[in-house]
């Protein structure tokens, strides 16, 4: 099989020495992690490597020799390096030699078993050690789905990425350390660290503890018995603001937990939640500062009552239009007047209540606007709730219209069956024939005729109020979609993909470098970053998303029969 040597590009100019890394025999590939320089004592090297092996669980061993001769080929050095092969017994013993500044290296192997008669082809693959170490390989979706992970199915590339990532301990010693072993790897020029990151790590522990304490207080207060009595609990379940606040509380609990993230998806999730919260609060504070400047809240409160009045006036005009001859249709005068007057009185009541509340509106709005500092999502949810409260009378009208229409439809269908001499058998849940008395038939037919001729009037009222209700529902749905988007977008992952694209790898790509006859094939392995669509799909935050409960056909059926529709379903809501 072809022998593949993965050589870190940072070691290309290292001094002569021996190669240390991992040999993956089933793929016949050698992953070189570092070069150990002379002078060294073989026993110490073996001890050090076994220590590293214990800590990292990676099978690190001496794989071969590296000869970087600046002048002409040094025969004695190359013989010495060959003899080293007998001390560090490894099969095959890889020998790489570089002359001067030549790009084309010599690569050969010493095999212990003589059964391999052919000259093996060797492929030299250069890789950027730091990038491969920091990168996280995302497997393609079909292999991720299969749960059984047999060793031979494991991707070759993930073995290489794993090897480098787990060998962090090996890269901790740099050339300024006074140890017995001098190595060259990507960090051998000095371990880098950032002061800000270290400070933040130190500060995060007490901050997390404080946050956990505060959150436990808040959740204790929220779960107290006082708030669970019936009217209040019903109110909390209907207001979307409370749900959003509960969702954010959960997020805060995830961030402030003391356990470290075990694996990469958990770490990304925590980071995404943190950045999402931060951006949310920043946008909320921006909104708040904009609202409270120049007393815009006052203006908003002042325009709220006239807007409510305006809506009520429009509704009254609409009802007057319906009570006349709407769109040229002829209504049943008496029923029309009854329904119209009933709804008009309802509007009159609603307006009186709004006017009763008007002195307090500004103060309520002022304090409610302060809660925008909790986040833009909370502000949007409050807006959605205010819209729901202001259009409550439209909802009431819709319910009245729907119930009337529903009664009428059921009555009509039952009397139609009577008209044909059939009956609905409740016990057997089917339609059976039935012999009615003459007076039953007479009254039934009469009622059927009355209901039938009153149907257009009721249907028109139902249609108008359903359309208004659907309009309000669509507006609320759009606001909730926006809230969902802000909640679930993995901003940290997107920024990471933009700035440090090698961290999120979909795979690798190879570039063929200059070749020379007789020398091994030279390839450069680069990281192929994940596309933005896959980033969003993989790291999406789960939300209490609201999505349409019914398909289009069932929605139309419900509308036709007059059943009440609640088109948006929240995850976790009990099904009625």
């Amino acid at each position, binding site marked *: *099989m072809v022998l593949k040597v993965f050589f870190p590009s940072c070691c290309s100019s290292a001094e002569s020495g021996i190669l240390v890394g991992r040999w993956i*025999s089933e793929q016949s590939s050698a992953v070189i992690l570092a070069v150990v320089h002379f002078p060294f004592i073989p026993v110490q090297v073996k001890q050090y490597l076994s220590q590293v092996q214990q800590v990292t669980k990676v099978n690190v061993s001496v794989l071969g020799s590296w000869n970087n001769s600046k002048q002409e080929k040094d025969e004695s050095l190359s013989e010495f390096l060959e003899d080293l092969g007998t001390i560090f017994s490894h099969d095959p013993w890889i020998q790489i030699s570089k002359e001067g500044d030549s790009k084309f290296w010599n690569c050969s192997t010493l095999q212990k078993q003589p059964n391999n008669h052919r000259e093996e082809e060797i492929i030299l693959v250069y890789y950027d050690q730091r990038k491969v170490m920091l990168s996280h390989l995302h497997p393609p979706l*079909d292999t991720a789905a*299969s749960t059984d992970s047999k060793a031979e199915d494991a991707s070759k590339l993930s073995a290489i990425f794993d090897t480098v990532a787990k060998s962090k301990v090996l890269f901790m010693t740099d050339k300024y350390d006074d140890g017995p072993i001098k190595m060259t790897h990507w960090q051998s020029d000095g371990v880098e660290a950032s002061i800000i990151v270290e400070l933040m790590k130190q500060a995060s522990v007490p901050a997390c503890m404080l946050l956990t304490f505060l959150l436990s207080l808040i959740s204790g207060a929220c779960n107290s018995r006082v708030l669970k009595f019936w009217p209040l609990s019903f109110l909390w379940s209907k207001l979307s603001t409370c749900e959003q606040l509960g969702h954010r509380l959960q997020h805060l609990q995830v961030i402030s937990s003391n356990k470290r993230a075990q694996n990469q998806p958990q770490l990304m999730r925590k980071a995404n939640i943190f950045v999402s919260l931060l951006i949310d609060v920043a946008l909320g504070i921006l909104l708040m500062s904009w609202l409270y400047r120049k007393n815009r809240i006052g203006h908003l409160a002042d325009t709220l009552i006239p807007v409510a009045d305006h809506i009520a006036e429009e509704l009254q005009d609409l009802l007057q239009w319906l009570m006349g001859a709407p769109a040229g249709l002829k209504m049943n005068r008496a029923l029309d007047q009854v329904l119209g007057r009933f709804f008009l009185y309802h509007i009159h009541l609603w307006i009186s209540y709004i006017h009763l509340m008007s002195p307090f509106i500004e103060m309520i709005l002022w304090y409610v606007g302060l809660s925008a500092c909790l986040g833009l999502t909370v502000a949007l949810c409050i807006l959605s709730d205010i819209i729901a409260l202001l259009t409550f009378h439209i909802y009431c009208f819709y319910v009245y219209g729907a119930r009337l229409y529903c009664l009428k439809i059921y009555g009509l269908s039952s009397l139609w069956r009577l008209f044909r001499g059939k009956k609905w058998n409740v016990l057997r849940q089917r339609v059976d024939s039935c012999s009615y008395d003459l007076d039953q038939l007479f009254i039934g037919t009469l009622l059927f005729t009355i209901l039938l001729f009153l149907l257009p009037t009721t249907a028109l009222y139902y249609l108008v109020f359903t359309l208004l209700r659907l309009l309000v529902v669509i507006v609320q749905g759009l606001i909730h979609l926006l809230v969902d988007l802000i909640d679930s977008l993995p901003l940290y992952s997107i920024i990471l993909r933009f700035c440090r694209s090698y961290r999120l790898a979909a795979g690798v790509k190879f570039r063929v470098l200059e070749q020379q006859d007789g020398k091994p*094939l030279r*390839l450069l392995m680069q990281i192929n970053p994940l596309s933005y669509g896959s980033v969003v799909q993989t790291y999406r935050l789960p939300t209490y998303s609201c999505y349409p409960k019914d398909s289009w056909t069932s929605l139309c059926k419900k509308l036709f029969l007059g059943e009440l529709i609640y088109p948006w379903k929240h995850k976790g809501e009990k099904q009625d």
Partner: protein
Amino acid sequence: MEGERPYLSASGAPLSLRRRQHSASCRELAVRCPRLQLRSLSAATSAVWLAAYGLFALCQNSMVLSAAIFLTLAGLIIYLHFVKIDQESLLVIGSLGIQVTSSYASGKESTTFIEMSRVKDVVINEAVHMQKVIYYLCILLQDPQDPEGVSEVVPLFQSSKPRLDCLIEVYKSCQEILDQRKTAPQSS
């Protein structure tokens, strides 16, 4: 063996296939598509601007002209960066895998690397495309659960669509390298 030879695409446009052998088990096959023609570009631009001038003559609003210029520029950039493929190449490295690269006219390259353990075979398939039957080369991926099954088909050279003679050359080159992995002794 190495070098560039002209072929035709399924719609009759001239293509060229370039073969390079880097080593005994590494081959690169690149199909270069016809370039963007100046006359089609000027025709599209003139059509858009004539329409814009017509609208301007009707409504006397100069925003229409600036919008047309902006649309033309944005459309050209989007076309060059996302739609127009200049070259599609296949790099077959025995024992590592197959790499498929598409280079766009703006210089963007989109690469996919498929490991050799996932590749079952490279075949030429037929497809019914509108009113024609065309041949296309595709890579069959192995199903991890079923050793005889195929989990996915990856079509190659989708935008250049070379004809059968070009595909046969590419197929022969690929099969020579894929055969090597069958004859190579599997390491225990």
